[in-house]
């Protein structure tokens, strides 16, 4: 029985995934200003990784859980850093995947 539970837990952990949320941000034109977004998001204990793309005006947040970060919290952080949130959506890709797509 213990083995069965162990196998079940292992299976479950292998199939669990981190949630990635994409935030489209208005006004994000320079790295010196946008660093506040990265630092504030990384200070959240549920956040695993953050990716900022100035060219396409978005921020990605990868959480340690599979349901993401509360949208209200994300919006507050972006607004406190001086920016405007245009849209928040869930992505099926990881930050690693997105980095590969945009960074040559």
């Amino acid at each position, binding site marked *: 029985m213990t083995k069965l539970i162990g196998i079940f837990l292992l299976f479950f952990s292998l199939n669990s995934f981190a949630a990635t949320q994409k935030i489209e941000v208005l006004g994000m*034109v320079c*790295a*010196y200003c946008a660093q506040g977004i990265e630092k504030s998001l990384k200070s959240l204990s549920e956040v695993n990784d953050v990716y900022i793309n100035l060219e396409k005006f978005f921020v990605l947040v990868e959480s340690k859980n599979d349901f993401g970060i509360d949208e209200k919290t994300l919006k507050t952080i972006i607004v406190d*850093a001086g*920016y405007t949130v245009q849209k928040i959506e869930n992505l099926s890709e990881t930050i690693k995947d997105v980095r590969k797509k945009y960074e040559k």
Partner: protein
Amino acid sequence: MFSVKPIFSFILLSAAINCIAAPMTFKDSTMAMVEGSNDFKRLELSYAITGKESIGLRFFNIEDKQHKVDGGGVFYLNRLKRINTINSQTNLWLYLEVGNVDNRRSKNRQAYLSPTFQLDYETKRIYSSLSHQILRGPHENFDRTQIKGGFSFYETSYEETQPWFILEVMNMNSLNNNTTFIPTLRLINKTLFLEAGVSTKGDPKLHLMYTF
């Protein structure tokens, strides 16, 4: 006796007071700034109490053949308005400073109050700002207008250092023929903001900001 008027004008022309430390960063961040040229040195520490307000301390020293001035003050910076679009940001800043200058050669001490308004517009490739400083002390009344404009040589990603060329033009309203031009190279990284320039009068200027 050294009059108070040359102290203020000298300080203003040396740009020792009130170069707004914008862009202000983010809530609970601390920023250190040093600036210097042949004649003056400046150290500034500020703390962002909210997403759009910061408070700080400033110390400066100006020294040449005629002057030996120490000064310092406290300041409050407020971003009164921010307009964000997909590829630009426009800001209106208010900067209030209260302090004291001390000319050690003439033993002349002078308190000052100095509000500044700054409007800036920035995209990933273009920067422009217009600021107007009002400096008031006992029997004193000086204004200074500063225009900065420039461009980035190329667009960069968030992780890369972005180089800019900025031309700074400064005019002090109360004095004639005192327009100064400073071509400047600006480098921006995530936590680092560096400007190095030489005025048309040959005075080098270095400006460094770091956010913790």
